Each structure stands twice: as C-alpha cells, then as structure tokens.
C-alpha cells in the first residue's frame, strides 16, 4: 500500500509543481488570451493534483500502517486523530519528500522555456493517462479519464505554440532551440522507474497482466513508464517536424533523481513560498 500511495503522490506532485510554475505567469503573460490559457492549464493541473492527493489521503487514513518516513513527520504536525488531507500532503512535506520529475520544477524562463516544458510534460501525461484510465485502481482510473480531456487540450495548445515559435521569427526559433537544449536532458527521467517502483512490485503488477487483453499493459494500477517512451518520441517528433525543429537524440546520460527526492535547488524555493502560511499558522482552517 505504501508504494501505491507513493505512486499517487508522485503523480500529484508532478501536477502540482507544474501547475505552480504555470500559475507564476498569471498576470504576466505576453498576450491576454494566453495569460488566460496558461491560468487555465494551471487550474487543470492543480485540480488533478487535488484529486490524486485526496485519493492518496483516503488510502493513508484507511490503512493506518501506510507509514513512509515522511508520513510520520506529516502526522506529527497534525492533531492526534486528525486525518491526513490533500493539504497535509501538499503543504507539510519538505523538498526530499516530493517526488515530481525535475522537468516540472525548472524555472519558467521565457515563454519558449515554459511552452517547451509544458509540451514535453503534456505529451507524457496524455500517454500516461490514456493507459491509467484502465488502471485496476478504479479511483485512479476515474481521475485519469477525467484528466485525459484536459491534458489533450494542453497538448494541443502547447503543440501549436511549439510550431509558432519554431516556424515563427528568427528570434523565436533561436529561443525555442535554446529551450529544447536546456530541457531535453530532463526528459529522460520521465521514462525511468523510481526505486520505489522497482523495489515494490508496481511493475510486476503491470507485467503480470501483460498477457491479457487490449488494455493489458495496465492490468496493474501503475504504468510502466519505459513503455511510453517510443510513443512519446513519435508524438514529439511529429510536432517538431511541423515546427521545422530537429528532434534531439536521447543521450546515454540524463538528469534524474526527482522521483526519489533528489531535486534541483529550485524546488526548495517553490516550497518555501507555497507552504508559508500552512507552516507559519499550523493547524488553522482557511
């Protein structure tokens, strides 16, 4: 159960941190309509994070023994008997307890960096949720099905911008090329399974169902990330081609560690800001 909870929290962290980064644009976008679109995506992602955290919190409260080390710490800040909530999970864990991929915590940079980050992640989430909607965890399956519609729009929107920037002006092309070269090393991690997956049978669950029907590769409750890589490459390549951008190759080395709590230095600052009120006024209702 602990691994299943970790998995849900990992998915939620990805959504929350990317949503947080996107929300930093609010009021500062290059075009009013795009400011609204960006807030909309942030809202979708924060909504997805909330559903996933809520589901994880329910499991935590149901299975009392579901005690990762960080959970002890979260429980320590709650009153005795007080249930864990979505907010406990978002606001009371420190940086090494967050398991989002490094990609989503990277700074917004310019519009090209933000768009590229969104595009890489949205294509990944699309493929992920497409499979997760058949998860054996019916609650997770329902969340995935609902999120899928939103993410499909994120893919469409960010693809259009990748194309505009790649096949726009010389400057926009230069900027998106720079963004791609900066963010590409963080994409490898998306397809890497974390130690808490490898060690815990999440993947075995999936493998166990792999001889079944159509949706068999997700007969467990989690998705084998590596299986998404080829599709991801194809979909990214299609958009890059229309954007007249060269598709980078995967190097043998990529940045990773986020899924296991080894983040970049940026995440700590995100959390200090995000968690301030919950930390400064513990145990309050808002």
């Amino acid at each position, binding site marked *: 159960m602990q691994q299943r909870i970790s998995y849900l929290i990992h998915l939620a962290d990805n959504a929350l941190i990317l949503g947080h980064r996107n929300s930093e644009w*609010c009021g500062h976008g290059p*075009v009013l309509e795009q400011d609204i679109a960006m807030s909309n995506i942030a809202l979708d992602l*924060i909504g997805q994070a909330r559903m996933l955290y809520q589901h994880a919190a329910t499991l935590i409260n149901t299975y009392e023994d579901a005690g990762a080390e960080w959970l002890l710490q979260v429980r320590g800040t709650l009153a005795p008997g007080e249930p864990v909530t979505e907010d406990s999970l978002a606001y009371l864990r420190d940086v090494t307890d967050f398991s989002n991929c490094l990609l989503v915590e990277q700074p917004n940079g310019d*519009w090209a960096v933000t768009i590229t980050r969104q595009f890489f992640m949205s294509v990944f989430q699309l493929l992920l949720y497409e499979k997760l909607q058949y998860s054996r965890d019916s609650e997770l399956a329902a969340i995935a099905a609902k999120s899928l519609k939103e993410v499909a729009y994120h893919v469409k929107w960010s693809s259009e911008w990748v194309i505009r*920037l790649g096949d726009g002006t010389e400057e*926009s092309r230069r900027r998106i090329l720079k963004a791609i070269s900066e963010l590409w090393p963080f994409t490898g991690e998306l397809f890497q399974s974390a130690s808490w997956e490898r060690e815990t049978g999440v993947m075995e669950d999936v493998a166990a169902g792999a001889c079944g029907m159509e949706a068999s590769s997700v007969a467990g409750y989690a998705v084998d990330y590596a299986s998404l890589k080829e599709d991801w490459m194809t979909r990214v390549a299609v958009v890059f081609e229309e954007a007249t951008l060269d598709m980078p190759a995967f190097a043998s080395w990529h940045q990773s560690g986020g899924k296991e709590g080894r983040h970049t230095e940026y995440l700590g600052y995100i959390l200090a800001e995000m968690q301030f009120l919950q930390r400064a*006024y513990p145990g309050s209702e808002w």
Partner: protein
Amino acid sequence: MAATLTLEEVFQDKIDNEIRIEPKDWMPEAYRQTLIRQISQHAHSEIIGMLPEGNWITRAPSLKRKAILLAKVQDEAGHGLYLYAAAETLGISRDEMYDQLHSGKAKYSSIFNYPTLTWADIGAVGWLVDGAAIMNQVPLCRNSYGPYARAMVRVCKEESFHQRQGFESLLVLSKGSPAQKRMLQEAINRWWWPSVMMFGPSDDASPHSAQSMKWKIKRFSNDELRQKFVDICAEQVKILGCTLPDPDLKWNEATGHYDFGEINWKEFWEVVSGNGPCNKQRLDARRNAWDEGQWVRDAASAHAAKRKQRMATSAA
C-alpha cells in the same frame, strides 16, 4: 446644421427612452470619447487588478483556496477581454489602449496601487473592493451604450460571485485562531478607506457627472453609491466580529444612514497622480510583461503570415 441637430436629438431621444446606442448608430464625439475613456479605464483596472491578487496565488494557504483564487484572477482577465472588445466597437484598438496604459496616459482604479500584504487581504479585496466595484457597476448594466451594458452584465454576475467568495473566506478567518482574527482586522483596517475612495471624489468635485448622467453612462452620484456601500459594510462587518477603522462611523436615525468620517482626499489624489504604494510596481509589471512578450507576439504573427502564404500557394 439642421441635420446634426436632428442626429443629436434622435440620439438623446433614444437615451431618454432607454433605447441602447449600438456601434453603428450616430453618437456625439464627446459621448464616444467619454465611453472610450471609461471603458478602457475599467478594462485596465481589471488587468492591473490581477496583480495584487495574483501576488497570493503561489502562497494560497490551501489547494482549494489556490484554485479559487486562480480562477478568480482568470475571470478578471476575462473581464478585461470583454471590456477591451466593447471599447473596440468605438473605434480604438486594444494596442492603442495598452499604449495609453503603459505611457501613463490612461488611468486605472487607484485601489490596485495598494499592496496585498497578508492572506486576509485577498478576502478583504473580495469583500470590500469587489463590493465597491459592484456597487458602481450594477447601474452600468443599464447604461446607454449596448456593448458596454452587455459586457457589464457578465462582469457583474461574476463579480458578485467573487464578492461572496471573498466574504466567505473572511468568515473562515473570523472563526479561526487569534492570529487569523488579527490578520483579518488588520486587512480591514488597511482596505477600508481606499475602498470608500473607490467611488471617486464627492459630487461637487466631480466635473463630468452631470453630462454622464444625462447620457445615462452614469445613473447615481458618487456620494449616493458611497453611502450605500458604507451602510451595507457597516452591517456586514459585524458578522465578521470586526470593526471598520472609522471612529466617526455611527448610525443616524434621522437620515436612515450611517454617518462616517472625513475621507483623506490628499491621499486619494496622491495615489491617483502616481504616488501610491504600488503605482510604479504595477505599471512596471505590466510594461515588462508587454515588452517581454513582444517577440512572442511577433512570432505568432510571423507564423500566421507564413501559414496564410502557404495556403495561398497551395491553393494556386
């Protein structure tokens, strides 16, 4: 000469009979200019107004509050869009209006030149600032210019939802810890007077009012609306277990209204003229967003042009 008089007569006749003026109708140039000034100022206020509230999105105290706040600020951007579109029907482009904002020629509501210092400010902005705005805006739903009136109907509907949300979030604080109650009272102390000033100068110091009333761009005087606002808030603040920071506030049996203290008009005019706590910060933020977005907008147009070109070529 006779024809012009007739046009003007027809125009005023429509207005007197509560018939909406539409973009293609003839209208006096002064009416057009007054509307452009007022609608664009209102649109700019929505856009600048995103900043003080946006300031707390990354720090909202719960995921639910974060989502509510983000949606609210997004709604304000939407209001900006409707209003810019309404102003465009009068023959000014959105880019021209932005230029006026960025150069300081156009104004926006001075209230947004105050900082949001704590989470309680977000609720106070919802309750007081949106409350005052609605008080000003509801009559505008019946103003004489069609596109503006229709935009205001949508704006008002959403604003009153925001105002209820703001009050509700203050209600939670009012039932919270001593620290939260203190945060609440302090926010009310800071936002009360600026909100009262949102109705603008007193009627005797408000030169355009008479003409605007005649044109039905305006339907109530500043002081009438302000009194209504004070009367309502003086009651609502009791529900929060707080007080308004005005020692002179007192129910007056004779008038059936609350008396209230002297407004610091010196502060009002200083803030209007650029010396508020955040004027520079707000305008800089918008100018930066615009300037740094230039290459993005250029890329979008360049790409659209290429696309059009390609379609033309492939069609040929």
